[in-house]
């Protein structure tokens, strides 16, 4: 199975170290998809609504899947999730939560708000690799995302 290299992945992650780790792992798995990164909740919304610093589709294309951290600066990841899932034009974009929080309340809340998956960031690096591998294989390779509306 091959990745569909043109489909953009949006990563909402405030920690540079975590993002660097993710990038390294994805490089190792030869992920070809363009990866976009936002570091705050406000940025994620700006990116999707193409406002503020993200006014051109060239800088901010519509992502086919979003990997979302919960504890984001600015608007919290939980609220970003709710906003996107309540917006008719974005609710179909798969959102996978990627967070350190293994709190059952968070898991429950995120699925209530329409999350498509919930991945806990493990401490152990080989565990982390397995998790990222699973994400890539399912969401970037096996899964068919909704067709991108022009």
């Amino acid at each position: 199975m091959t990745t569909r290299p043109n489909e953009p992945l949006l990563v909402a992650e405030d920690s540079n170290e975590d993002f660097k780790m993710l990038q390294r792992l994805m490089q190792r798995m030869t992920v070809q998809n363009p990866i976009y990164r936002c570091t705050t909740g406000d940025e994620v919304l700006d990116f999707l609504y193409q406002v503020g610093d993200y006014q051109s589709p060239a800088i901010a294309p519509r992502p086919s899947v979003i990997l979302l951290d919960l504890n984001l600066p600015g608007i919290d990841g939980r609220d970003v999730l709710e906003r996107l899932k309540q917006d008719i034009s974005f609710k179909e974009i798969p959102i996978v939560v990627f967070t350190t929080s293994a709190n059952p309340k968070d898991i429950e809340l995120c699925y209530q708000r329409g999350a498509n998956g919930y991945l806990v960031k493990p401490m152990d690096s080989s565990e982390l690799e397995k998790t990222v591998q699973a994400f890539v294989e399912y969401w970037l390779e096996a899964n068919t995302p909704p067709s991108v509306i022009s």
Partner: protein
Amino acid sequence: MNLTNHEKPIHAPGSIQSHGMLLVLEEPELKVLQVSSNIKTYLGLQPQDLLGQPLSHLIDPQQAIAIGQQLTGENTRNPLKLSISTDRGKRYFDAIAYRTADEAIVELEPIDSPNETSFFSFHAAIAGILSQIQSTSSLPEFLQLIAEEVRKLTGFDRVMVYQFDPSGAGCVVAETKRADLSPYLGLHYPATDIPQPARELYARCWLRFIPNISAPSVDLITLNQQPVDLSLSILRSVDACCVEYHRNMGVAALLAIALMQEQQLWGLIACHHYTPKYLTSEVRIACKFLGQLASLELANKIRQQELRDRVQLKSLQSELIESISQASNFVEALIQPAPRLLSLTNATGAAVCLGNEISLVGATPNLEEVRSLIDWADTQVSDNLFATDFLPQIYPPSVEFKATASGLLLLQISKIRRYYILWFRPEVIQTVTWAGDPNSSFQLENGSVSLSPRHSFERWQETVKLKSLPWQSYELDSANDLKTAIVGVVLRKAEELAQINQELKRSNRELAAFAYAASHDLKEPLRGIYNYSTILLEDYAQLLDLDGADCLQTIKSLSQRMEALIDALLRLSLLGKAQLNLQATDLNELLQQAIAVLFASRPDAQMSIRIPRCLPTIECDPVLVSEVFSNLISNALKYNDKADPWVEIGDRERSGGSPILYVRDNGIGIQAHHHETIFKLFKRLHSQEKYGGGTGAGLAIVKKIVELHGGRIWVESVPGEGATFYFSLK
């Protein structure tokens, strides 16, 4: 009111009805003092023939002795059969003899033969009624049975059971009648229809019989006597007012039997006939007996009915209390389902008021009206339980909502907290159908009100304005019981709350201790990580390539960041345990020091500080407040991208209360949706690289300090132009 229609007292009219004769006697010789003038019609005698004579002048000695015995109570008031010789032969009479205060009275009613009893068997008439009465289960069923039995006994066209309410107004509660007559069942009659003296006579005599209401009355002829008291007389003439009243109704013959309960006139069995109708004394005795029997059983049936009502009410209450004590939402439990709260006091509407929160149930005035009513009650009502069936009289604005609340029952659960339950009843006019316009029984004559019998008996819905049905004592009890129950529930909840509070305090203390200890212990391995990374970088730099050195640098900066986070946590947990060291503090001095310290650690900072006017001296913990200022000013410095950044510190107009201080800048500002979240621990609005990073603990610490002082902090901002943080310190 001047009731001018009765020229003579109703109990001593000085005349009788024409279907019998009456003699007033003087004991012990039984000398005739007064005699009815119709003695001529019945006996062919002139009154003068008898006046001053002993009774034996009229009847034979044996019969006179029997009369004497009845007077002394040796014989009860069963009629004696008398025969009197007249010039037209022997005539037969039923005779009743009794004493009044001053005289003895004998009343005679003609009968066809001395054996009349044989046509009517008292036993046959009464037998069976008793067992039937006992087998009826409800009060209405019982009253209906009584009405039917009386109609069977008397053959009257219409027999009604008429019940008085506490105001004296009456209502037809049972009725049986000739099929072609229009029903009176359910109609109400004003108290004036049966004046108080008439009611007293009913209560004394049990029975009132008028065979022909239109027959002219017969005067009592007397030598020199005052009108005698005819209260106990069965022949007493009919009051003119009563005659006209019944004639207007089309009634020709009338029989009324008293229904007594606990020595009070509870009601009447009222019998109407539309042509003159005579009843023998035996039938009347049977009727009277039936009335007495019914009165006895009435108390029973009322008690049973009340008991049933009470049991029902009690189960309603306990159901309500059960759900209150289990519910988390107290008001919800009270008002859902709505009929339960209403039937507790037989109200049509209710309002539950908890402080400023008012919930309405059923038919009520609107929210504003209820609010004003409670405001009024707050100052005017001191009783825990207050009931009125005439609210507009004491609270005139309620005229506006008389249709829902002419009656008010107010239960005060807590005056301090303004916890009330209010029940409403509508104006009675909405629910009562009167027989005829009761107001028409009053006529104004030369400025005085007089009673006059009504002419119209058409149904009429008018009279008692602005009043509701009265609240019964058991309904008030029910409200009181509810209060007791609620107080019990509230007390239990308060107890639970106190316990939870205690646990919360303990766990809060533990948490602060934990955070402090944990922070301390966390720092130790952290120092190790930092120090060992430093050793690697310094002593083994030649073994690492650029990437490796970069990774080690990241470890160092991450461990520094973690230390900053732990320090913030430590600071907050210490604040949680802190005791305020309050003292009068000159804010100008405090601010100067804080600014000096701040700029000492940031020598390159370019920012102008504006203090437009002298700051006050206030009571506060100077060390902590200094921390507030340096945090806010350092934020103003950090989040500013203008060419000429400035920060302004001042206080807003103090109007009596504690001053409101502010720190204003011309920085990047904060969007409205972040105005609350910025005060959360470790909450940041920007990524680490921007605006010099930070832990996101500063404002959380500031907020904690302000709240420790009993104050409040908030922000106002125009994004892109600047922000102003306001805070107060009590």
